[in-house]
């Protein structure tokens, strides 16, 4: 019962979010601000995690395939496919759920409990659309760039780790990342991250928008936003993989 109640309320909120904006110019300006806040500010964390994950994937693959039967280029190939298929979309989405999901929920939640949302409503502004739509557009537009960046940096991290530890040569790695390359994997990852970004933004905004009470509830909303976004990312990962790769 509770689940259906929340699903219904979530879709009713989305219905309000996608209403015609009061002024496109203001929404455009807000979207640019959100790209800066949610997107550009996430570059650093995505880059750091990607370089280390690329390195770890490469080293682990190297140690698990330490057999003369396996060609060395397999290390590069495994690192590439792991990054393209899962890490740069799903794992990055889970990290972003923690970073931007909690940010969205706490920001909107605080606006709710300090009556800033009521103030918007009183002025005749569609607060749901004004607060949520720019965030959705910003994250859906920008996260695919983060994913592409993560792929490149992750592969670079793998190369640095592989060569510096001596588990393979540059030639093996470069051959491996080019071997049996399927460009559709990139499209698959970009579709996934765009959908994950939509889920993170809307689920977090939902929890923030319907916060009631005080600062304690803002914290709870923020936690729920991260947990629920993560669950839905994992659920949709299965669904999208089946739909896009089968």
């Amino acid at each position, binding site marked *: 019962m509770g689940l259906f109640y929340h699903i219904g309320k979530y879709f009713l909120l989305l219905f309000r979010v996608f209403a015609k904006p*009061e*002024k496109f110019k*203001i929404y455009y300006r807000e979207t640019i601000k959100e790209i800066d806040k949610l997107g550009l500010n996430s570059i650093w964390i995505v880059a750091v995690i990607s370089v280390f994950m690329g390195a770890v994937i490469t080293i682990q693959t190297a140690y698990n395939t330490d057999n003369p039967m396996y060609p060395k280029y397999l290390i590069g190939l495994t690192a590439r496919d792991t990054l393209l298929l899962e890490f740069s979309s799903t794992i990055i989405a889970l990290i972003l759920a923690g970073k931007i999901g909690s940010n969205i929920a706490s920001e909107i939640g*605080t*606006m709710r409990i*300090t*009556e*800033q949302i*009521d*103030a918007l*409503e*009183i*002025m*005749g*502004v*569609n607060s749901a659309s004004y607060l949520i739509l720019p965030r959705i557009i910003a994250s859906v537009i920008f996260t695919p760039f983060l994913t592409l960046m993560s792929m490149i940096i992750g592969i670079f991290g793998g190369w640095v780790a592989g060569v510096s530890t001596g588990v393979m040569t540059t030639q093996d790695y470069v051959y491996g990342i080019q071997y049996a390359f399927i460009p559709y994997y990139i499209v698959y990852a970009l579709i996934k991250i765009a959908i994950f970004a939509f889920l993170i933004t809307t689920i977090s905004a939902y929890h923030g928008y319907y916060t009631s009470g005080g600062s304690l509830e803002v914290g709870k909303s923020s936690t729920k936003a991260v947990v629920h976004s993560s669950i839905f990312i994992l659920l949709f990962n299965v669904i999208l993989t089946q739909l896009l790769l089968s």
Partner: protein
Amino acid sequence: MIEVKNIAKSFNGVPVLKNIDVLFEKGKTNLIIGQSGSGKTVLLKSIVGLHDIEQGKVIFDGTVFNELNFKDKKEMRKQIGMLFQGGALFDSATVEENVMYPLNMFTELTYSEKRDRANECLKRVNIINANQLYPAEISGGMKKRVAIARAIALNPRYLFCDEPNSGLDPQTAILIDDLIKEITVEYNMTTIVNTHDMNSVMEIGDKVVFIYNGAKWWEGTRDDIFDSENEELNKFIFASKLSQKIRDLKNRH
């Protein structure tokens, strides 16, 4: 003029407003008074449509506000200004940007025209040299005044104030009261103020409505209030020793 007809509201089956009828007059400061938890804020928020009422009508100069569709309600709200208890200023915007917000959203004025109007409103509430400060950098009294400036930026016909004096020292509270009173007369607005501050009642209460336990218990003017024989109202008004002394002095003369 705002007419409230037989409105009721409950939360989780607990009645909070019980069949309230009241008329708020234009060009006057209409006060809703009552103890904390009596239903004042719910009444105010029900009138402006932030809470959906379960029965009755809220009529703004002949228009039944609570029966309007979403679009018409949005249009109507452009004529409403509201001062919230904490000010409800946008944290990420400066004082000037806060006042310019409704102008940005609903007018086609140029940037300099909007800035001029914002400065005019800020000057009206005696905010000078604070335009570029953020809400976190100004005092509680200033926040309330900026919120009033934002509320009047679009020349509204109706002004609602939810506990405008809460958390303010008596001197600043009187300044805010005077400002509300002056603006009401200047713009010929229908103003409704929620308060439990007896100073406000005596300073600006053209009309006073006493809410007790979710129902309208008494209504009259500030001059009638001391002569009222309503037991609950008297308990509320004469709760402090100061007001008891004032009553005794008045009775002696």
